[in-house]
């Protein structure tokens, strides 16, 4: 069967089971947009290519399947660089297809030419510049294989216009042996010696902590993790990237560690004698000052990526494996720590003494952002998906929401990409139309990518957006208040500019506003009754509210600052 390269590209995506492409056409990718008309694949037309990338990420995080985005060359390609970098940091499986100028024009500074494979070399797991139409099926199959196996990540395929316009004899790789990846070995056999050494360390431990990272979600380890944790009675912490890997309601769950982590989670790590890292990478937002991090702990490091071993923290045992296989092996080997009663007693006193805390609403009536999140949670069905941008609202969402299952937290962790929330929520909802999807956003973040609500309305993707509008770039404001002597530099945004309700309405969404507790409950109820169009709520929150607990940048986790109302007892 003879096909054009463009037809072969779309047919290859169909072969990979793609159900939705987020994209925006342009000159160099034009040929590929023609066969989309005849394809079973849904195309979501975005308003900015960054939106396409974050939607693909949101789709991937909510469904566990790779997200697909397609854009044109030049500025189309550069506009999707931020989502690619974001996906790379968070190991999110993406396949990004970019148009390219014709092969004969490459290197001539042609119109809308840019070297996108060069630009994305360091922020993709791999990328391809296709040279002939005949190569397209192999490149697509390889891209999906690379994006989804081993440590997942974004893969970019750059397709010159003449390649998509030329003819090829249709074929499709029938096995991974045909992918021409002689150097790619995503999994290695489990090292039995390493498992035995880990069991020995666990058996001797009196104060162990299971430090669960994003790798646990990537390998869908939730059942194995729950079984292992419950049998061994070990305390569990889940990083920002692992929220949902272990139920927040579980009594062994101490919550999130790190800069804005729960006091008990942070302190348990500081005091533990054995840290069992499961698909986590000792990010600086978790460790604080590395030399003071978990100073008494031996470390067992489970990771599918060997380059994570001893990168930040020296470990005593390394297990190169996906989390599911490693946890199963440790459990099957009967690893059991010492009696943990004393350890738990200590942990319980931290939990009781230093819970999450915020002040009751002030007299001027401005809402507490934490309270808004609690109210939305209380009005939400189990399994509701929460996306967020980056900043204070993100930390509060992670702290105050209760994540009970994988795929319910859609968030930008490593890269910290403001503006991630709205498009990521749209992608999540496109992948999980059966679920309610809330985007808990900040006013600063919302303004970066809000135009994608036009996409959401046009495509019938009814997400709900809660803007915690404190009129500031809140996290920066918090740092300026705490570390720059309250010298507020370029952080004020104005709660009334733009008018978020009118803006929402202009984009075909329902716009609501709440200033008081009564209005808050009322608009949340109204939002939950609307299921056909996107809803945006402008919650007016108190700008003086700060995220606690907090470990200052570069400080030891021992110097964690709790909410002022909890201080002064020791």
């Amino acid at each position, binding site marked *: 069967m003879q096909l054009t390269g463009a037809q072969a590209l779309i047919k290859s995506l169909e072969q990979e089971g793609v159900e939705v492409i987020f994209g925006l056409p342009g000159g160099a990718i034009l040929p590929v947009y023609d066969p989309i008309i005849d394809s079973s694949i849904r195309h979501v037309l975005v308003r900015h290519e960054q939106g396409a990338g974050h939607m693909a990420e949101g789709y991937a995080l909510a469904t566990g399947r790779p997200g697909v985005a397609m854009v044109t060359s030049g500025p189309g390609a550069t506009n999707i660089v931020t989502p690619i970098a974001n996906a790379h940091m968070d190991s999110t499986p993406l396949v990004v297809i970019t148009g390219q100028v014709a092969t004969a024009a490459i290197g001539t500074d042609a119109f809308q030419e840019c070297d996108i*494979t*060069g630009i994305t*070399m*360091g922020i993709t*797991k*791999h990328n391809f*510049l296709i040279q002939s139409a005949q190569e397209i099926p192999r490149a697509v199959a390889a891209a999906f294989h*690379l994006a989804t196996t081993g*440590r997942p990540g974004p893969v970019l395929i750059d397709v010159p216009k003449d390649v998509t316009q030329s003819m090829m004899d249709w074929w499709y790789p029938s096995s991974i042996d045909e992918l021409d*990846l*002689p*150097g*790619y070995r995503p999994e290695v056999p489990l090292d039995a010696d390493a498992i035995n050494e880990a069991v020995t360390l666990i058996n001797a431990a009196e104060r162990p902590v299971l430090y669960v990272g994003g790798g646990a979600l990537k390998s869908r380890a939730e059942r194995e993790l729950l079984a292992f944790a419950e049998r061994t009675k070990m305390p569990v912490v889940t990083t920002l990237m692992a929220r949902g890997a272990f139920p927040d309601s579980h009594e062994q769950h101490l919550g999130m560690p790190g800069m804005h982590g729960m006091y008990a989670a942070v302190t348990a790590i500081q005091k533990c004698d054995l840290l069992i890292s499961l698909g986590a990478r000792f990010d600086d937002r978790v460790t604080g000052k590395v030399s003071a991090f978990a100073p008494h702990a031996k470390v067992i490091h489970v990771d599918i*990526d*060997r*380059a*994570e*071993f*001893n*990168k930040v923290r020296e470990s005593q045992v390394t297990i190169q494996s996906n989390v599911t296989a490693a946890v199963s092996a440790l459990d099957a080997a009967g690893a059991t720590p010492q009696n943990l009663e004393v350890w738990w007693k200590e942990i319980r006193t931290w939990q009781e003494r230093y819970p999450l805390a915020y002040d009751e609403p002030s007299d001027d009536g401005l809402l507490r952002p934490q309270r808004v999140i609690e109210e939305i949670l209380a009005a939400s069905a189990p399994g509701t998906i929460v996306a967020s941008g980056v900043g204070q609202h993100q930390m509060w969402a992670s702290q105050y929401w209760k994540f009970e299952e994988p795929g319910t937290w859609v968030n930008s962790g490593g890269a910290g990409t403001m503006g991630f929330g709205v498009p990521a929520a749209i992608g999540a909802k496109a992948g999980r139309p059966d679920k309610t999807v809330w985007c808990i956003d900040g006013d600063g973040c919302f303004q970066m990518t809000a135009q994608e609500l036009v996409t959401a309305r046009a495509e019938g993707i009814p997400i709900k957006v809660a803007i915690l509008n404190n009129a500031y770039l809140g996290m920066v404001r918090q740092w300026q208040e705490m570390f720059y002597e309250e010298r507020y530099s370029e952080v004020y945004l104005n709660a009334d500019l733009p008018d978020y309700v009118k803006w929402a309405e202009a984009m075909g969404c329902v716009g609501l506003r709440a200033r008081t507790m009564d209005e808050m409950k009322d608009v949340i109820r109204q939002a939950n009754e609307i299921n056909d169009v996107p809803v945006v709520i402008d919650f007016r929150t108190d700008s003086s509210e700060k995220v606690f607990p907090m470990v200052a940048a570069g400080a030891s986790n021992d110097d964690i600052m709790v909410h002022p109302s909890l201080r002064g007892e020791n």
Partner: protein
Amino acid sequence: MAPEPYLGPETHTPVRHHILSVLVENKAGVLARVAGLFARRGFNIYSLAVAPAELHERFSRITIVVDAESAPLEQIVGQLYKLVNVVDISDLAPSDAVERELLLATIPTNVDSRTGLLDVIGEANAAIVDVDAHHVTVMLAGTPHGCDAFEKALESYEGVELHRTGRVALPRLGTPPESEKDPE
């Protein structure tokens, strides 16, 4: 006062260097991927040599001499393995390797200086590969230290043009297996 521009270290070889022999797919952009990885991770390359690998046109071999002070070798190797086009890596401690490098130098000369120069060339075991009335071009295929010494010996001559290839290496025959060796 403006800081002085970077003049580089005085000696060529880092205190702790290590040789990585990296088999890669012979595809466009692979060298850029390897070099880019070193740049963005802050790993220092001392020298780098690329050529088609034995057996196949499908593969190339990149011999990289890395500064093992700039990053732990485990990190460098682990990150290199993540490049999809990297097929195999063998790492060689200098003590376990036979290292050689090629040096070519064109030296201006005249009747007065020629005798002295011939002595220097002879002592280094270098060979004269080209001559005209005012220059000689010499070649030395030798150990990196031999090349360093020869380069130093040529420093007293004005207007020398000197090129070195960067080293290639193979495991020393009869090297004891990994398990029996002392760690570095």
